[in-house]
């Protein structure tokens, strides 16, 4: 599906389905240098189980036009603008990594538009390694290599993909290699400079799910403790995986979301 938000075209994956205005909406928001396809299995499931799914490509990512947005607050406002463009009154928001910060901020700013909130692979603050940031600033391929090496648990760096025949680290690498220069840097800066996380969490009124990876070194589970303590109505599920939890544990992520949205 394509809509216009401001001056730019925006793509959202819908599971190849037309929206049913009577069904609840879920918006999936990807992380740095990714696109909608990181939620392929989970978003497709909900699209065929009674929900309207919109797995967006953020500005400057995937099939969406424009430049990447420079901070989390702007991303949050952009999400609301997307809801308006897609005529979504109320949504469940699911965000991964950078996307988790964007949906957290959006839920705090516009509580009337967000019915539930799922934060996957999240941390507040979301630290970004200096070497990684420097490599991203230089558009050095090393930045992708560092992210890939840290995004999977040690076990999964050797494969064992639940999705038959797919080598998940190369998939993640190819996805990042597709982004235009400076996009990764912009995303990482947005993560690093976001300081409003706990304040936003305190302003979230809907129920929340935090889905954390026990072996996540990008956003370690312990780095989400403050968020857990601050969110009002939160359930926490910790999975045996790294940061790329939708690839490593696609069924466990789906089952946690199903339970949360039951």
């Amino acid at each position, binding site marked *: 599906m394509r809509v216009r938000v401001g001056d730019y075209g925006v793509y959202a*994956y819908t599971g*190849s389905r037309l929206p049913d205005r009577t069904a609840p909406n879920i918006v999936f928001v990807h992380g740095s240098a990714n*696109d909608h*396809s990181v939620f*392929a*299995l989970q978003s*497709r*499931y909900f699209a*065929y189980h009674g929900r309207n799914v919109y797995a967006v490509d953020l500005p400057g990512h*995937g099939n969406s036009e424009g430049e990447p947005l420079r901070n989390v607050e702007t991303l949050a406002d952009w999400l609301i603008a997307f809801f308006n463009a897609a005529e979504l009154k109320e949504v469940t928001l699911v965000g991964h990594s950078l996307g988790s910060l964007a949906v957290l901020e959006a839920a*705090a700013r516009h509580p009337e538009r967000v019915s539930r909130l799922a934060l996957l692979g999240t941390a507040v603050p979301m*630290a970004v*390694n*200096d*070497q*990684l940031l420097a490599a991203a600033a230089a558009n050095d391929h*090393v930045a992708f*290599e*560092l992210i*890939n*090496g*840290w995004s999977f648990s*040690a*076990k999964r*760096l*050797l*494969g*064992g*993909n*639940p*999705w*038959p*025949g*797919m*080598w998940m680290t*190369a*998939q993640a690498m*190819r*996805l990042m*290699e*597709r982004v235009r220069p400076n996009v990764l840097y912009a995303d990482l800066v947005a993560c690093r400079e976001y300081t409003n996380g*706990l*304040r*936003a*969490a*305190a*302003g979230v009124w809907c129920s929340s799910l935090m889905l954390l990876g026990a072996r996540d*070194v990008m956003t370690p589970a312990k780095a989400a*403790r*403050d968020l857990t*303590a*601050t969110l009002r109505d939160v359930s926490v599920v910790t999975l045996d995986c790294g940061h790329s939890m939708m690839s490593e544990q*696609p*069924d466990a992520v*789906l089952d946690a979301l199903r339970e949360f949205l039951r």
Partner: protein
Amino acid sequence: MGWKFDFATGSSSGVYRVAGSTWAFAFRYYSPQRRCRLQSAVAARAESMAKPRTHQFDTLTLHAGAVPDPATGARATPIYQTTSFVFPDTDHAAALFNMERAGHIYSRISNPTCAVLEERIAALEDGVGAIATASGQAALHLAIVTLMGAGSHIVASRALYGGSHNLLAFTLPRFGITTTFVDPRNLDEWRSAIRPETRLLFGETLGNPGLDVLDIPRVAALAHDHRLPLLVDSTFTTPWLVRPFDHGADLVFHSATKFLSGHGVLIGGLLVDSGRFAWDAADARGKFATLTEPYPGFHEMVFVEESTTAAFLLRARREGIRDFGACMAPFTAFQLLQGIETLPLRMAKHVDNTRKIVAFLREHPLVGAIGYPELPEHPDHALAQKLLPRGSGAVFSFDLKGTREQGRRFIESLKLFSHLANVGDAKSLVIHPASTTHFRMSAEDLRKAGITEGTIRLSVGLEDPEDLKEDLSRALHAAGKA
């Protein structure tokens, strides 16, 4: 409204409404000891994060895709000899069928043993994934039918395995897919053969049987200039000698029957996707409708929307393997995994032995031209040095001086070299292409492919090279007396 303090984490947060506005706050208290611990942890993490975590080729040959069996702890990959897999419930079954969950349904579509093999070859080639097929021919067929239908066109190297040539020249035209064959060394021929309906460029890393080295970077660049993918048959080289994706190829297939297996005990193929080709790029729009348009055969799925990097493999599995059915058997996949575990060791020995045999033949008066790219006189010597620094493989051809009868006597006098139609076995092999693998080709096509009546093809195995030289020496002597 109000605030709370969490003693476990030291964090405090709250929300207040003042003059009609909502104010939220949150802070966290860090004791000096806690701050010190955190700083140490951050420093340690930065140190450990100094370089990317990756695994090297030899490690991947042993481990990629495989984990100890979760049910039994078996270290070797089990042979999942089953047609189908039990669904936990009906919702789970429906989700598997509709690609909402990951897993196996039926072994024609996917199988856990085959999946380990697919991941392993993808890891070794640096591809996003792979599909194991019943043979190398099935892999080639799967690649083609995934991308095109009747009315489409392929540009292919003229120096192809005879079976590939048959498929392209005689069989596929019956289904409306035609091929123009070109001199692999002549980039202008590649360029001028491309038409609006062309959907694929195709060549072998080392052409059969003259070992023409495919200039992958230049042919790939030409293909990409025309928004076309390059498919490469890497059977003779395996990823240990060259990884075509590193040089710009988009798709790779192997007859895994050969060096990957290494023991001449199975028939199998592997098709690998680099994940780099942009099937839906604006200037390629409409060319690859199988991947970019809704597919009625799978809930109007648009494959490039489902997967940004693996649309080709999705369609190949959800249509090509499902409908044409040329899948690999789990036992075959198991044997292939055993073979790949020793690929680096075997390939090094294959190449080493081949160099010794080539040096021996080069000095023999009954031997004419030798087609081995490591020799300075080979037309692709410089290219081979660049693309194949570890060696030019273990299959090569040479011309036996003399009559057809002398050729027959040579082959029949060999004792260690087995006369058969295969390459890439641990044992040394020999064949006369003009009367066997390439016998369907016309004299003109043979000439264009660099094959003469006296051409002999060797596949050098892992025996002691002195024994191999002695065997060749005895057979050449017999041929000389015939």
